[in-house]
């Protein structure tokens, strides 16, 4: 299971070793950078919403912009804050499976609705 990281005793790097070889370690500077990126994305999503209130964009485009930004934020949090980038492969697989599972739920449910011609005229999002 722990084949590639069977580096005995390296989990025990004690005191202040700083950012180095140790797998599973992300340096402090990276966390601050990721946080800055999250703040920028946050400003972008509110900004986009504000602009959409002034100029009329297609509604579907607005939703697409907001969701793209939300997914970008999620990827940053999962990879860096949740350490998935430096985790074992099995953990990475589970993390991916969670979102894949949700995608399957959406695709099958919406596929069924569309196949039955629902919703009637007011949808889909204009």
């Amino acid at each position: 299971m722990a084949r590639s990281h069977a580096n005995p005793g390296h989990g025990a790097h004690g005191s202040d070793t700083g950012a180095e070889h140790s797998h599973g370690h992300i340096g402090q500077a990276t966390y601050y950078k990721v946080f800055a990126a999250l703040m920028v994305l946050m400003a972008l999503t509110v900004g986009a919403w504000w602009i959409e209130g002034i100029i009329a964009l297609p509604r579907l485009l607005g939703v697409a912009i907001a969701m793209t930004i939300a997914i970008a934020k999620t990827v940053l949090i999962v990879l860096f804050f949740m350490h998935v980038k430096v985790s074992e492969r099995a953990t990475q697989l589970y993390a991916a499976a969670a979102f894949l599972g949700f995608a399957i739920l959406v695709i099958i449910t919406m596929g069924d609705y569309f196949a039955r011609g629902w919703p009637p005229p007011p949808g889909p999002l204009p």
Partner: protein
Amino acid sequence: MATTTPTAKPAQPHGHDGHDHGVHGRELQHHFETVQQQKETATLGMWAFLVTEIMLFGGIFMAYIVYRWAFPEVWAAAAHHLNTPLGAVNTVVLLVSSLTVALAVNAAEEGKRRRVLTMLGVTLVLGLTFLLIKGYEYSEKFAHCAGYATPISWVTGTGQHAVDECLVPGRAFLFPEAHGAEGAAAASEHGAPQPGLGSPYQLFYFLYFVATGLHAVHMIVGLTIVSILTFLVWRGMITATYFTPIEIGGLYWHLIDIIWVFLFPLFYLVH
């Protein structure tokens, strides 16, 4: 996993040599080879739980997708009555708290006990701030149902019948007069806004209260976990060798953050 070790040799120094940890404690339980392996196993277990959490919220998001797709006009009109500035502030609060949790894990990894305590303390304050703001938003909606403009005037009992709307789902639900072209279109399409269970706008607020309510419950659980972690660190039970509780507690906190990252644009930023 396939190797079945005979269990009847308690006094034996365990098979894996090359480690200088004499006693098997929580740093390294006897069924793990290395500290690293134990940590990875715990992390994987936590992720298995997080997958079920995503499926739990996934059901709510699925309902949201179906109904927003079906009634985009209702969504556009209804979302205007949520307090977007407060929602934005809460997003920032949660993002900062995610940073402090990440820094707490980082400090724990490096064995800096004082810094871990500071970071967890800041996280607690931020989490409470989030809940306070959320609580204010909720109480605003309930105050409107009672006829008061703000929760404060509700408490002091001044100026009843100031507002004529109730956005809490139920028999008293009353969506205010449709405003602007969007609202008017929605009203003509689905019949004029009507009080009580027949109002189409109720669907949006029902999903809003369920989704943010479940999220708030998770926040309360998260705050409890962070409190326990703070206690563990304070008691010196977390070391640079063994900080798994901080690591997987942090994973839970980040998950709550991710859920909010989606709830915010889906409920507050709708046109």
